[in-house]
């Protein structure tokens, strides 16, 4: 049986951020992810906002970690060559009563340490956010809000953790955890692994995983959020990320954008029972359009080109991050709802602290590779740079995806860096993510994936076993 110092369960942003943070120490680390690739859980379907820390209760753990996370994410994104764009957010008031609430929001956020907040008036809004509704009378401006591509973030955290010696095992589901002091035995469908410490970062399934080691003191309740993306033609629709005033359970319907430039509207917030219910609904669509119209009246439903739903793993009001004394060595990182994407690097530091407090020696490695080599995306670079790249490697000029301008080279590189599925290619490169939704490029992508992995085209899946694209073939593969 393989023995490790640390076993992390869950390859979302939280698990991979922890793996990357711990990989700077002389530790043996393994991460288990039940899906075909990392980032296929909650971390792939969210708003991608690196929140400044506003809209959190002043004494909350999530508020504190969000503010820290906002700072840490910038540094980490530079190290890993991930695009982080500071966009700034506006929490918009439409009445005198709402404008009054902005003052309290500002105070609460300042108490958490959110920097550079400012209340702006109608004149400022007209000038700096021209497409915002004329009904808006004031807003709380938080310049430190940013955007990131959530899945590419997870992929890059994972890649760098692997460069530094962590093992990431995808397609392995943890089924049982046995306490065999002084270590745990972690049972998967492909055998058992031993570890001194177990970190539960299983997202929606964190309650089930916790129960495997006998800790049943919380339940995860999924809270669904539906999001709708608009055509990239509308890039620049808003300059800032626009929020209404928050409600008790969510930040409301926002008008934001993805790191690739598509405006995005949503999310809803609906408690559901089923942890696999990622369906979008017509009610959700209506609600989101209504909310988005209130902020930006010019948004047209015909501009929607894609949609998805995500489930927030909610366990009460706040994050649960603690060592479970009844199962020594077992650390829960659960209930990581929003702003979990933002907080992840701060959560990772906190977990390192908990490990240290529980007797793990954290000794730095002699060599820690903190940087990651950047890959290029043609859609994101100037034409002159594209020309140079094609000179170096001809296949940068071999365009596979017509809507998003993705080359065969980028697809092959995505596969080399870990993509094993069509969704994995999409999240990494954007091929299939444009207006035609893969009608044009699917067959070519299947071929490249089959070639690079040695699989038959019949074995090519959308996102892992059971999601094969085609049923049978007449061809010999």
């Amino acid at each position, binding site marked *: 049986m393989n023995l490790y110092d640390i076993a992390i369960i869950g390859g979302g942003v939280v698990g991979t951020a922890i793996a990357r943070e711990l990989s700077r120490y002389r530790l043996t680390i393994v991460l288990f992810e039940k899906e075909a690739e990392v980032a296929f859980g909650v971390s792939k379907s969210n708003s991608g906002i690196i929140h400044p820390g506003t809209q959190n209760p002043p004494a909350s753990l999530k508020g504190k970690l969000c503010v820290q996370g906002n700072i840490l994410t910038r540094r980490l994104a530079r190290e890993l060559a991930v695009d982080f764009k500071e966009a700034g957010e506006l929490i918009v008031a439409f009445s005198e009563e709402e404008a009054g609430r902005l003052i309290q929001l500002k105070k609460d956020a300042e108490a958490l340490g959110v920097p550079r907040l400012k209340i702006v008036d109608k004149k400022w809004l007209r000038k700096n956010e021209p497409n915002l509704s004329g009904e808006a009378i004031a807003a709380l401006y938080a310049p430190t809000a940013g955007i990131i591509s959530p899945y590419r973030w997870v992929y890059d955290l994972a890649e760098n953790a692997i460069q530094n010696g962590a093992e990431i095992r995808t397609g392995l589901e943890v089924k049982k955890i046995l306490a065999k002091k002084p270590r745990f035995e972690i049972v998967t469908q492909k055998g058992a692994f031993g570890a001194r410490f177990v970190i539960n970062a299983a997202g929606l399934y964190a309650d089930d995983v916790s129960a495997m080691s006998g800790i049943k003191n919380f339940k995860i309740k999924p809270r669904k959020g539906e999001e709708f993306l608009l055509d990239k*033609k509308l890039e620049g629709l808003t300059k800032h990320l626009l929020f209404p005033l928050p409600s008790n359970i969510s930040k409301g319907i926002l008008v934001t954008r993805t790191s690739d430039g598509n405006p995005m509207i949503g999310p809803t917030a609906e408690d559901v029972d089923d942890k*696999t219910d*990622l*369906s*979008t*609904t*017509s009610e*959700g*669509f209506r609600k989101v359009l209504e909310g988005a119209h209130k902020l930006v009246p010019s948004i047209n*439903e*015909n501009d*929607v*080109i*894609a*949609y*998805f739903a995500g489930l927030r793993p909610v366990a009460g009001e706040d994050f649960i991050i603690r060592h479970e004394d009844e199962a020594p060595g077992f650390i829960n990182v659960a209930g990581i709802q929003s702003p979990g994407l933002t907080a992840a690097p701060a959560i990772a530091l906190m977990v390192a602290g908990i490990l240290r407090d529980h007797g793990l020696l954290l000794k730095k490695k002699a060599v820690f590779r903190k940087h990651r080599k950047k890959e290029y995306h043609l859609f994101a670079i100037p*034409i002159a740079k*594209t*020309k140079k790249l*094609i000179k170096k490697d*001809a*296949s*940068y*000029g*071999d*365009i596979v995806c*017509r809507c998003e*301008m993705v*080359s*065969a080279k980028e697809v092959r590189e995505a596969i080399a860096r870990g993509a094993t599925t069509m969704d994995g290619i999409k999240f990494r490169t954007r091929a299939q993510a444009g*207006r*035609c*939704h*893969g*009608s*044009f490029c*699917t*067959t070519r992508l*299947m071929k490249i994936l089959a070639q690079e992995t040695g699989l038959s*085209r*019949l074995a090519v*899946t*959308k*996102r*892992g*076993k*059971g*999601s*094969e*694209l*085609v*049923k*049978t*073939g*007449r*061809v010999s593969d």
Partner: protein
Amino acid sequence: MIKRDLVIVGGGPAGLAAAISAYENGIKDILLLERDQYLGGLLNQCIHTGFGIEYFKEVLTGPEYADRFIRKIKNITSIEISLRSFVVRLEKDKTLTYLKPGGLFTVRPRALIMATGCREKTREMVHIPGTRPAGIFSAGLAQKLINIEGLLPGKEVVIIGSGDIGLIMARRFTLEGAEVKGIIEIQPTTRGLLRNVVQCVEDFGIPIYFNHKVLRIHGSDRVEKVSVAKVDEKMNEIAGTEFDIECDTVLVSVGLIPENELIEMAGVIIDKRTNSPVSTEVNKTSVPGIFVCGNSYKVYDYVDSVTVDSQLAGKMAAEYIKGLD
């Protein structure tokens, strides 16, 4: 920067006809750019018959129809054909940037004919709720998978919309041994050609549900079923009429839209609703010297009419170029 008299973007039936016609009308310096590795465009995957009845007074398959033009153009040495050439940018002065394995090029033609065809509307454009499992295809992609790649997408199929490609694919799937469990059309009548309804659907006993819509797609990894209901005149579902159809595949055939993002980049005025160029005369756009023909001008029912109008585009471009001298 290379200068040319005429550049044609697109090597499908429209681009081929336009290029040949421009040559026949006296233009000798022609570059044709095609992003695929072969000429013929969508006709290559249309292996059924029904092409050429008007133009050649013969019944041909798609590839046969295309082949007649491909043979002809290959004999015209002054038309340069550049395959795997992908135009990524178009400027107001008609300067084009295109990529090809191994190179990035810019070219400025005196006249430009865009023959970039159309694309299928997606499930997202008509907002069909539900999950996003494997097994949802545009009808055209399913056609390419079967006819070009030799792969069968699924065994139990529901088709959303009764566009021509959807109807043709109903027959194609049936011939391949799959079961087409129904075609769901929200309108009271088909939007496809009558001959396709008869030959591809009725002759095979495939159920077609008019005034019905798909409410939801179900399934987590792979499509499992769709929920369907009858609709009233306002397209709203009628309570109590909902039923499920189990299937592993959903084809979406809800219409085509002209592909005109490039000319939009160059400032050509586009009708937001149809995605066609705003135009006073067939093939013309709001920018002099930029012509659009074939399905990127408007969605045609028959390739024969595409050929005729595209030949006219070639002539118009030739006259435009001669007028500049």
